[in-house]
């Protein structure tokens, strides 16, 4: 029976070692620092690690190092060390659990609420409140970084509204006018069918995997006037089994099974959809309005082919789902590190939005690297501040602005709606299989799928 024991042990060890990565970390009291306390310790020498994008070219790294030197001469007691970091859903959780995140890092809006709820980032609200522009954030943008009591735990540094990206060359090839993209959902459907028929490319592609299925489906639902959750005092209710979710799924069903205009790939995530769109295989797809940079620099898209427009909104409640990037501070940072970290966020991310010299310096550095400058995004503050900052950098703008016109002429008039507040990624994850089912099973039962999904999401929200 020796081998029995050995194999039993082997089985145990095998299955259990899976959990090896779920290893331990220490805890923190989670109390925030006030500006007064920060003032007291402003002379203490302190070292902070700050995130810079992974895989930057040498020139870009040098530009950042110059900024680090400037910061250090302004704050003699602070030493800044850069650390390569790019937010990726799966590795972020592991980094957070393993305690390997830098002191200052960025996360998408979707993660802000959860991180704050679970106190997995530092409470810097006292320090942020002291910043001169703390009261001027666009309300819809600010909410992503705020705790339920209104304190800002994470600072919004960029925002976007979802848009419909389209390939101008495929439009032309299919006999459509790239300067007047679709403005209703019916027109989107017709254009997809035409592109698919005339060019053989995928007319319209939908992301469905790694939580993007729920993200894009909810984007469509928002535009059709629905919402994913309702918040009443402290009770959050999932509103998935609704006419708008039915409408969005039936719309996809028609494009997939009646028109056959959605191609052959139904497991697209963010990366593959952008790669295929960049490669000219996709006519239209929905994603963040600020994705131009990624498409051109990382997916080798020909800038001449790029077009983007706003999503069609329906009814009184139709709204554009918005997102963005938050700068946050590691929960394990000491009080002095937190104070220095907020100084860095102010200096590195925010100054270029509020100070003409910083804006120009930043634009010049980015343009020198051959990276796109001036692609329209949503203002973090108000429209006037944003327009002013675009004027400061006018000389460096190197993107084909006229191709953004269908988007940039209309996006600021669209009501921006933040993402579902509670368990956002869980909600998106639970909807992935629903979208996949509709696109891969001709007989998918939308009623049953949505009823199950709603129960499932409610369960996740309640677990917290």
């Amino acid at each position, binding site marked *: 029976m020796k*081998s*029995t024991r050995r*194999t*039993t042990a*082997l*089985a*145990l*060890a*095998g*299955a*259990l*070692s*899976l*959990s*090896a*990565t*779920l*290893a*331990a*970390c220490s*805890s*923190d009291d989670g109390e925030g620092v006030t500006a007064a306390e920060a003032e007291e310790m402003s002379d203490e020498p302190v070292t902070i690690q700050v995130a810079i994008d992974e895989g930057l070219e040498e020139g870009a790294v040098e530009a950042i190092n110059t900024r680090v030197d400037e910061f250090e001469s302004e704050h003699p007691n602070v030493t800044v060390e850069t650390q390569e970091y790019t937010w990726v*859903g*799966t590795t972020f*959780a*592991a980094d*957070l*659990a393993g*305690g390997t995140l830098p002191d200052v890092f960025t996360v998408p809006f979707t*993660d802000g609420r959860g991180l704050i709820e*679970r*106190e*997995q980032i530092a409470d810097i609200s006292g320090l942020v409140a002291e910043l001169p522009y703390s009261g001027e954030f666009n309300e819809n943008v600010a909410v992503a970084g705020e705790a339920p009591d209104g304190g800002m735990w994470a600072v919004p540094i960029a925002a976007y509204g979802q848009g419909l990206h389209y390939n101008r060359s495929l439009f032309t090839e299919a006999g459509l006018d790239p300067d007047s993209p679709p403005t209703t959902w019916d027109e989107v459907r017709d254009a997809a069918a035409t592109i698919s028929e005339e060019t053989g490319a995928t007319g319209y592609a939908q992301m*469905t*995997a790694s*939580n993007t299925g729920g993200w894009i489906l909810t984007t469509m639902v928002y535009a059709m006037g629905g919402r994913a959750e309702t918040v009443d005092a402290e009770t959050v209710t999932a509103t998935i089994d609704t006419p708008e979710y039915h409408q969005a799924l039936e719309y996809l069903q028609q494009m997939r099974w009646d028109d056959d205009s959605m*191609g*052959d*790939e*139904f*497991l697209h*995530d963010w990366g593959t959809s952008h790669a295929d769109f960049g490669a000219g295989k996709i006519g239209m797809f929905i994603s963040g309005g600020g994705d131009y940079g990624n498409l051109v620099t990382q997916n080798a898209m020909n800038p001449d082919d790029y077009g983007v427009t706003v999503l069609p909104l329906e009814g009184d409640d139709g709204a554009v789902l918005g997102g963005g990037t938050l700068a946050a501070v590691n929960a*394990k940072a000491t009080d002095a590190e937190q104070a220095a970290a907020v100084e860095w966020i102010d200096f590195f991310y925010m100054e270029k939005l509020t100070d003409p010299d910083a804006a120009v310096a930043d634009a010049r550095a980015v343009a020198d690297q051959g990276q796109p400058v001036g692609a329209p995004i949503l203002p973090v503050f108000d429209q006037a501040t944003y327009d002013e900052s675009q004027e400061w950098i006018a000389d460096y703008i190197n993107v084909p602005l006229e191709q953004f016109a269908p988007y940039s002429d209309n996006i600021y008039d669209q009501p921006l709606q933040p993402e579902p507040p509670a*368990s956002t*990624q*869980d909600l998106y*994850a639970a909807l*992935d*299989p*629903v979208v*996949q*089912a509709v*696109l*891969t*099973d001709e007989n*998918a039962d939308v009623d049953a799928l949505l009823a*199950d999904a709603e*129960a*499932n999401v409610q369960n996740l929200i309640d*677990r917290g």
Partner: protein
Amino acid sequence: MVHPATSVPPSGTALPDGGTPATVTPMPTVGTGTPTPRRRPRTPASWVRNGGLSTLVIALPLVLVFGLFSWYPIVRAVVMSFQHTNLVQPAEWVGLDNFTYVLADPMLATAITNTLYFAVLALIFGYPIPLVAAVLMSEVRRAKGMYSALAYLPVVVPPVVAVLLWKTFYDASESGLFNTILGWVGLGPYPWLQDPSTAMPSLVLVATWSAAGGTVIIYLAALTGVAPELYDAAEVDGAGVWRKIWHVTLPQLRGILFITFILQIIGTAQVFTEPYLLTGGGPASSTTTILLMIYNYAFGGRGDYGAATALSIMLAVVLAILSAVYFKLTAKWSD
């Protein structure tokens, strides 16, 4: 608790049952006529002289590494399965809450069904193929090494590279590699990974391809241990190829066959790489396996480490019980 060793005098000669003097009296061996050599009392000095110290020094790194990277995480996992923790705030003890949550999760039934489906398909296709290949290869007279190398080649390819290659092969459009080849004989195009009914068999094909080589090598090694006289004897008795395989080869390999069978069951119960990289569990959860579910609990954006460890432990216990029962049932055949 005081460890018994702490009350033992430094000589280390006490017996565990209460400190009786430990000088072992030599017992004459009745009937053999040769006296047993007198055993010396074990002292630290004799322990060192007999190489105890070097044994300890040699074993220490292994014990430390295992302790730190295997046993400690296992203990941590068991502890975490009874906690709610985000690894930042202090953990909260929740009793069996994680276990009841996982057991009530509607996805669990789907994941178990999918994993069983994968295991059954992998057994039907993946278990006999290496055996057949090994028996055939052992019959080959020339260039045996080349066949072994070819069979083992897929194992050498890094799993992630292999899986990403298969992803391009499985391209569901008419211009995909498999669909193009099948198109030449008028078949397809098939959706492969893009359809809930064909996704899992597609994954099994990848897993079988990548794992078969290793098992072939094991069988080939075992086949060299089969005494040629047995085949000669069978031949004299008039046995053909099939009867030789049935009456000589398979019975001689049964010990190895039992081991590879249970290892395959354990392996398939923990299938992760293929669904994670090829389908992400889709389409429509048709390839969400138990391990993928564990991964999603912990790293799918939720950070639910309690649920993840609870499910890990339940899987480990089930596999342990399965292995024990299996060996109990097959013990009498493998002797």
